[in-house]
């Protein structure tokens, strides 16, 4: 071991050249990993922030969906559809039926507002990521018992109650009394123009039976477990609903499955082009690096033929020589790998700083680079090392020095 270290130190230029290919290779590999991880982290963040794990199923055909109607009256989506989706598909984390109607008058004391009423299931706030600020969200029991309980939008609560705490108070929606169970966190107006703060959410069983007097839904919302499989899940939902609604081949859907914007795919595609390029550079450099290592080691073996002959003469076994040369290759490769990993982190950070890609730095590239370099060192160092170890000491000592 000491022999190998001495040899590497005493021949710095050779060691440097041996490293070069690996440094480049590992640098690109590391950059790939950092960018890959960064992209992944970004996607996960966007999933959380923007609901990239959300599938919305709306009643009515696609072209009707965006028609400027107030309350759509397409009676195609039922609670049973939601139950069938939940029971039949694997990639579903949460599912909720949704009914809604605008223009309900809500009264508390002498305050009165006109707002939109949503009837939803107990997981809806998780699917749409609408945390409750005071009180709590609807429970399963509220659904089962068709309880007259309500969660108020932030502004709705403010208009009705001012600064007072609404939780536990009784309001009137239409002619029905409801107890306020919670208040949503302020959300602001979404880019789509939805005012999340001006609404009231109640159990959809209550809305269906006590308020709206109808069974059909406006929406079913689904949160998938694995966002990467979201397109497949959406397609499965489509198939399932067509079956349930007995829509013949070629006929139009009476519902519309809406997936999250394709931003994600675009973002992933951009970085995957970069990834492919960097992986290609990495593979080529590692290969070149390996060949360089092999050649420089072969030169080194013939330059040090006397040393090898001497070592064998004074008692080194062939495997000692093999070990020494392999260890030299490993040493060079590992140092090269670590330098490369550091360089790669630098490249990734630079790309991130320039805004070309996002990057995240972890220990993973370092572990991979050690493994990859070890592999290259052994794969390309074995032949020269074997050659050295198989020298005949008599012949080696008599060899003319290069």
């Amino acid at each position, binding site marked *: 071991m*000491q*022999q190998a270290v*001495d*040899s590497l130190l*005493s021949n710095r230029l050779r060691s440097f050249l041996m490293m070069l290919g690996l440094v480049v290779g590992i640098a690109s590999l590391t950059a790939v990993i950092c960018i890959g991880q960064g992209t992944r982290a970004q996607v996960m963040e966007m999933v959380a922030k923007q609901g990239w794990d959300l599938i919305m199923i709306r009643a009515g055909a696609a072209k009707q969906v965006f028609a400027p109607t107030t309350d759509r009256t397409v009676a195609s989506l039922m609670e049973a559809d939601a139950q069938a989706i939940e029971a039949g598909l694997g990639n579903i984390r949460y599912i909720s039926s949704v009914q809604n109607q605008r223009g309900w008058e809500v009264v508390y004391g002498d305050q009165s507002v006109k707002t939109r009423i949503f009837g939803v299931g107990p997981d809806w706030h998780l699917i749409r990521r609408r945390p409750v600020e005071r009180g709590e969200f609807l429970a399963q029991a509220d659904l089962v018992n068709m309880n007259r309980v309500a969660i108020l939008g932030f502004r709705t609560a403010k208009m009705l109650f001012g600064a007072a705490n609404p939780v536990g108070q009784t309001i009137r929606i239409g002619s029905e009394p409801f107890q306020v169970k919670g208040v949503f966190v302020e959300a602001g107006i979404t880019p789509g123009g939805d005012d999340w703060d001006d609404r009231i959410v109640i159990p959809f069983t209550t809305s269906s039976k006590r308020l709206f007097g109808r069974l059909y839904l406006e929406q079913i919302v689904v949160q998938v477990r694995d966002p990467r499989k979201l397109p497949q899940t959406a397609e499965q939902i489509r198939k399932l609903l067509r079956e349930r609604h007995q829509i013949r081949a070629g006929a139009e859907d009476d519902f519309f499955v809406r997936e999250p914007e394709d931003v994600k795919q675009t973002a992933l595609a951009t970085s995957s082009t970069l990834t492919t390029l960097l992986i290609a550079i990495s593979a080529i450099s590692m290969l070149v690096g390996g060949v360089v290592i092999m050649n420089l080691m072969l030169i080194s073996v013939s330059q040090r033929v*006397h*040393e090898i*002959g*001497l*070592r*064998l*003469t*004074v*008692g*080194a*076994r*062939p495997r*000692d020589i093999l070990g020494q040369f392999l260890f030299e290759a490993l040493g060079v490769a590992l140092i090269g790998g670590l330098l490369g990993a550091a360089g790669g982190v630098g490249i990734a950070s630079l790309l991130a700083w320039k805004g070309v890609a996002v990057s995240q730095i972890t220990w993973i590239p370092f572990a991979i680079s050690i493994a990859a370099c070890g592999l290259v060192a052994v794969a390309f160092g074995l032949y020269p090392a074997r050659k050295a170890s198989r020298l005949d*000491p*008599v012949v080696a*000592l008599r060899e003319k020095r290069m």
Partner: protein
Amino acid sequence: MIELENLVKNYTKGTVVTEVLKGVSFRVEKGEFVAIMGASGSGKTTLMNILGGLDKPTGGTYRLDGVDMARAGEDELSQIRNRKIGFVFQQFYLLDRADAMKNVMLPLIYADGDGGGTARAEAALAAVGLAARKHHHPAELSGGEQQRVAIARALVTDPLILLADEPTGNLDSRNGLEVLALFQRLHREGRTLVMITHDHAVAEHARRLIVLKDGRIVEDRPVDQPRDAETELRVTQDASGAGPS
């Protein structure tokens, strides 16, 4: 200690078989200082390689310290070379990038370490009179000093025999005499030395002379009046007018 019986060595190149050693027999006992002499092509290098366990005989037997060397495996031979034989070469074969100490310690890397390597290397360097130059690199040493470092390297494992192949061949006469004086001193201290040379004057520093010709021993006799290298050194010094060093 060394027993050769009817040793034969052939080299085969294609279909041509060259007989290099044609039945060589002799014994070397502990404490002897033997010179093996012969012109080039006499087979003396081949004999040296076989004695050193670097080559195997085609026929006959060679026992070193009771071990049949023809039957020893590669690892066993490595071990024997490491422990029982000290090699001294014409070209010294020192590692340029290592200092004298590291060069001397080289064989110890491949010995089953019992520690104390530094002390042994220092003792070996002291034995060849180079204790003061242990951190010098080969390039900073004269030819004679380099060969003495090589001899220290051969001594460091405390081998049974010292095998020297033309140890003075690369040295001027003065440095050559210094090496020979060292050999004679080691002999007086009880070491066993086998020296191979083509030079009669060098051979006469040994106590026994074996002459090889065309693969056979033609002479095996004690040296009547061995030369004394120390005396010769004094003479050369006086002749050149140099003062005592």
